[in-house]
């Protein structure tokens, strides 16, 4: 009974994700006018038949922007999260498993990473990039950077976890069965890091979506006129009266729904693996 209910929830979560992904992939058909068209006579308009979610400050159809923004963020944020999770697993998990000098070196690198003045490095990245890059390239680079930088805190946890795993009875038992080192890491250590890896993965998604928007400050992230969830959320900054214009909250609500759904779907995987 209990399992049944949980399964329905997860099924619903899966359905929501598929629906959101499907609709956003069909953005070209659903919103053929695109995300950049400015209806200047109807700027900052409330929802209407023509603009289901109203228009933004310079008259762009918010529904279209949400659709296209979803496409960008829903595709790229999980990809970046996956990248950072894999890096965390490899750097943290492997070094903890190998122990000794390996783990000391990996943690030193992690500390170094954490202590680097990222702001300046990112400014440098922006300075190195040419100014004339397409909005899509800009957002791709940004998510790549996020993926490459986002692994540090998880790596520490993973290093510690896999160090304890290395000395655990079942790993000793497995070694005594003659299982090789690589196989041992893959089959016996990694599966036990899954809870941390899943957490890293789904925490990274919303974190990256928001970071992408914040990196706009440094001239990174998605560039006008392309929308992303981050840039849509930025609209909410300093919104004086949310109560009067609830439709402006749609990107936020959508983000919450998608992240929660991700959690549900992943929770199932985690349980299946446990």
């Amino acid at each position, binding site marked *: 009974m209990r399992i049944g209910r949980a399964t329905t929830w997860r099924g619903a979560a899966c359905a929501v994700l598929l629906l959101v992904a499907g609709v956003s992939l069909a953005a070209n058909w659903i919103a053929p006018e695109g995300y*950049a068209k400015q209806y*200047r006579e109807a700027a900052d308009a409330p929802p209407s038949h023509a603009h289901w979610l109203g228009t933004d*400050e310079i008259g762009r159809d918010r529904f279209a922007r949400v659709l296209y923004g979803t496409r960008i963020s829903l595709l790229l944020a999980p990809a970046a999260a996956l990248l950072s999770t894999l890096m965390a697993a490899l750097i943290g998990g492997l070094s903890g498993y190998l122990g000794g000098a390996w783990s000391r070196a990996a943690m030193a690198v992690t500390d170094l990473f954490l202590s680097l003045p990222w702001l300046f490095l990112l*400014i440098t990245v*922006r300075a190195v990039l040419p*100014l*004339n890059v397409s909005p899509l390239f800009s957002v791709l680079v940004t998510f790549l950077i996020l993926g490459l930088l986002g692994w540090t805190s998880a790596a520490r946890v993973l290093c510690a976890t896999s160090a304890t795993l290395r000395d655990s009875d079942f790993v000793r038992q497995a070694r005594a069965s003659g299982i090789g080192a690589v196989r041992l890491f893959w089959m016996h250590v990694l599966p036990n890091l899954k809870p941390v890896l899943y957490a890293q993965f789904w925490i990274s998604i919303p974190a990256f979506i928001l970071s992408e928007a914040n990196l706009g400050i440094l*001239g990174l992230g998605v560039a006008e006129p392309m929308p992303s969830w981050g840039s849509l959320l930025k609209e909410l900054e300093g919104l004086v*009266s949310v109560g009067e214009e609830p439709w402006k909250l749609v990107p936020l609500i959508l983000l919450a729904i998608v992240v929660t759904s991700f959690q549900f779907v992943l929770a199932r995987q985690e349980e299946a693996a446990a």
Partner: protein
Amino acid sequence: MCTQHRKSFLISIAACFILAGSAFGQGELRFCLRSEPKTFEPLKVEDEASATIRYLTGGVLVRMNRQTQALEPELAQSWKVSKDGKQIIFKLRSGISFSDGTPFSAEDVAYTVQQLMDPALHSPTGDAFRSGPGNVETKIISPTQISITFPAPVAGLDHQFDQVAIMSAHSPKKEMAVLGPFMVDDYKPGASLLLKRNPNYWKTDEQGRHLPYIDSIRLDIQPNRDVEMLRFKRNELDLINTLDSEYFDKLGAISPQLVHDAGPSLDSEQMWFNEVAKSPLPAYKKAWFRSEAFRRAISEAINREDLSRVVFRGHAQPAVGPVSPANKFWFNAKLKPESYSPDTALKALQAEGFRMENGTLKDKDGNAVVFSIITNSGNKYRERMATMIQDDLQKIGVHVNVVTLDFPSLIERMTQSFDYEAILLGLTNVGLDPNEQMNVWLSSSDNHQWNPSEKAPETAWEAEIDKLMREQASSADPKKRKEAFDRVQEIVFEEAPFIYLVNRNALSAVAANVQGASPVILVPQTYWNVERISLK
């Protein structure tokens, strides 16, 4: 009989007090400083918060009426500028003393001017007076008369004294002894500042009542505009000096009597192309940007009406040039904003050898016209303007990439590496006089943004601007100066080194209990007549 008389006398005194108390001499005016004041020394003022305190506490010889933009006598009853523009003679009021009781005389003016011009003190206010090498000479003719002679002519000499708060030569309280309507009573760094009325303030109103009407001013240090707005709505603040157009509309929708749109301000938003010869841009792009026809065409293809209407919700006007129409005297009224006409723009470009190919404009060598506009991140109005310009220019086949950068990076590109194509920024003008823009127009200046620090003017029109700016600066004749500066405005319009976009309106909010406030476009918009403001 006797007792009864006395009683009624007491009652009438009490009534008097109550009356006086209710109408005048009571209450606290509250508004926000948007940053921590850096100094209380009037001569060292550079930041906005310190300037506010100087305005509220400092006594000046002459004051420009922020409404009429005319100069009015204050501590000086009258004054006279010499023909050559080097000397000014002030006739001072008598019987005035500082807030601590120290009497005011010509000695204090002499002391202040010496301090102002002291190279060791390096007063930012003094910079406006430093027109040539040499020392300032102050001569006290009598306790109420003083002559001040500068080594070189100072343009708009009398107007410059609006910024000079007179300090006491003798008071042990130094800069805390003031001549203005208020004095600093309590300062909690990071939190708030309390100003109390100056009991020795010399001014009275037409009925002979001592000014100011209000007892005290509480200035809360609050950089966050959302919080400021929220507190205003909760009646915890009485004034908001510069309001965002979004807030203006939101607040105006609820209570229209609280918001004031004083019309276009002196501030302008503009964009410009990089015309620096040694910039790292490819030669063909340099050729575009250094072409007057290209710049004018881009300017014509920008819909300024839409920028004003959409980005600023109608609280801005298409800009004409470096002088806002709000600057009543100096604005060249013959000029009108560039009219929006993409067709004319395209024709002009085609005449220059550009051509349209599948919706993309290409120059005569076949290079697609693509450039980036950078603006400072975090300024949503500029980001929106850039996005609208991007859309406008797409119509003539020009592809724009909008890049927002943190301010330091932007400044670095703008002043050091010259690695940019176009920049969209705003310019804040505090003063009205063209001399305040000197550093922008002289081709040798490092603030000559589109092509800074030219060894010699690189174009004929820049040479002409140099000449005209020098001419107006060295003349004391307002008419001649106006003629010269009118011509500068015309050249700037024709050559479009800066593509002026809009002048934002001065928007402010005044709480319902504030009486006598009449917001203007000049700083300080809402409390320029603070001594005559009272609270219900």
